[in-house]
């Protein structure tokens, strides 16, 4: 082989190695999550761990039920999506169908910057503004209640609002670009048939951009489920049933707030919490793959 051929071959191999690193990374992350996450399942028992309602990791007779933690993640994410998606979708309608160029630029610039703001800043602002406001409401609503545990405003509702704000940019930008990709001939045809602009948007453009919008929503779900620091700062520090005014722990905040000091079985259970989160995220990735494929066809 001459020198040139050797160089060519070497270059190709190096590029291949670079490309394979992504596969290696996903495989080793999966491997580690499973390896570290399963021992606690055996030790505590699958049912007791996943469906146990009591979380007392450091008690004399410890109990490691993470059911409410899983539930809080699901409820928090679902409510944030219910709150954030309509707002995001209507904003996308504005950006792609109604806005003038100049105002559109301002709004989409704001959306881009919102996406770039670090999550700890969202958490900090939630702590300073949302939590005191929630505490005020809490004091009004539960005045004289002997059963309610006061949280100082760090509750599920605060977490939902922060999450809803944080998924907005994802939903807006993905939906906007998929609505912009809808061909103008569809709009013209609809308008020519006598439909109003809004009818055209909601009956023609949005259905045509369905798969892109769905992608945005699924991405938003993933982002909400995986967000850790911001909601850890606003959602309180106790494992509870996910009711609006309860302090809650989610899968992510449970890891963030206890990994620092946990040991023994407690630590292993936290790895299982990570594994549960990982399984959820992988499911979302698969759904995403399906949604995108559906869009291609």
């Amino acid at each position, binding site marked *: 082989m001459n020198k040139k051929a050797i160089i060519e071959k070497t*270059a*190709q191999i190096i590029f291949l190695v*670079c490309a394979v690193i992504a596969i290696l990374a996903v495989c080793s992350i999966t491997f580690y999550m499973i390896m570290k996450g399963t021992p606690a399942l055996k030790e505590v028992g699958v049912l007791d761990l996943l469906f146990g309602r009591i979380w007392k990791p450091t008690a004399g007779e410890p109990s490691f039920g993470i059911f409410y933690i899983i539930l809080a993640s699901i409820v928090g994410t679902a409510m944030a999506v219910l709150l954030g998606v309509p707002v995001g979708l*209507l904003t996308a309608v504005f950006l792609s169908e109604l806005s003038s160029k100049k105002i559109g630029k301002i709004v989409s610039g704001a959306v881009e910057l919102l996406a770039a703001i670090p999550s700890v800043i969202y958490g900090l602002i939630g702590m300073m503004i949302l939590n005191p406001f929630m505490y005020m409401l809490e004091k009004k609503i539960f005045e004289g209640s002997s059963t309610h545990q006061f949280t100082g405003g760090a509750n599920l509702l605060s977490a939902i609002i922060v999450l809803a704000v944080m998924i907005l940019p994802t939903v807006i930008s993905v939906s906007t670009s998929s609505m912009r990709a809808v061909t103008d001939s569809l709009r013209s045809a609809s308008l020519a048939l006598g439909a109003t602009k809004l009818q055209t948007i909601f009956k023609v453009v949005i259905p045509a951009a369905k798969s892109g919008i769905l992608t945005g929503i699924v991405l938003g779900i993933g982002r909400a489920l995986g967000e850790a620091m911001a909601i850890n*700062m606003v959602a309180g520090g106790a494992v509870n049933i996910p009711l609006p005014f309860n302090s809650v722990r989610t899968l992510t905040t449970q890891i963030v707030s206890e990994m620092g000091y946990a040991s023994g079985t407690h630590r292993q259970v936290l790895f299982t919490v*990570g594994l549960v989160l990982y399984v959820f995220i992988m499911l979302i990735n698969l759904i995403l793959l399906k949604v995108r494929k559906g869009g291609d066809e």
Partner: protein
Amino acid sequence: MSKSRKIKEIILYGLIYICAAVAVVLLVGIIGYVLAKGLKSVNLEFLTTVTSVLHGTVGIAGNIVNTIYIIVITMLIATPIGVGSAVYLNEYAKPGRLVTIIEFATETLSGIPSIIFGLFGMMFFGQTMGLGYSLLTGSLTLILMVLPLITRNTQEALKTVPDSYRNGAIGLGAGKWHTIRTILLPSAMPGIITGVILAVGRIVGESAALLFTAGSGKALINGLSNLFPKMFQSGGSMTVQLYLSATSEGDFDTAFGIAVTLLVIVFLINLGTKALAKKFDVTQLK
């Protein structure tokens, strides 16, 4: 149009405009609030000293240096790998199973939440490889996180390089490697740089993946000879310090001071990517 439908339309228009305003109001509110609360904490001492009871100073210089340190190590390793991966996918690979798997892996990687990266980094780089809480552990973890960003942006840029460039180079007798090095990568440079800047932005804002990998050390590097050993010491980024200040330390002045600093950086990065996109936008050159 019937009257009730007209009212419905008006309400719907109203809702659309309100929602669009929400994004702008939120942004202005957040920036305004952070500036109002944090601007008084930011001064030269805050940015150039380390918080110390002994010297009576409050500052985040150590955290700024840590953040820069993490950015540099991460990008030095992640950029070549990400670009290489994109080159392979775009220039060498023939459509087939391997490409599908690589693209799926890249896609998956970009969907994994940062707290999972943090857990993996802590277990693999920190414990298995024995690096403990260190800037290196944090950087290695973040490489995996930003890799998809760089790969995807480079791929997009390579796709826009016309095939005539490739054919021309090959026709003139250049090898594939030579073509990539002298024609394709330079043409794709704006896309690569955009990817790098976006990745830097992601690193600046990252906290969950760093908390259990890079730890929370605040010390400055003392002396150039310690530049390399610093890699193996724990170091909290600005975001991690903000989190600690706002929670366990209860020092909101520092927290808001860091928030102001972070917002300025994020704003500059945003402007940078915009300027780049404008400069290299092919549609505007014509």
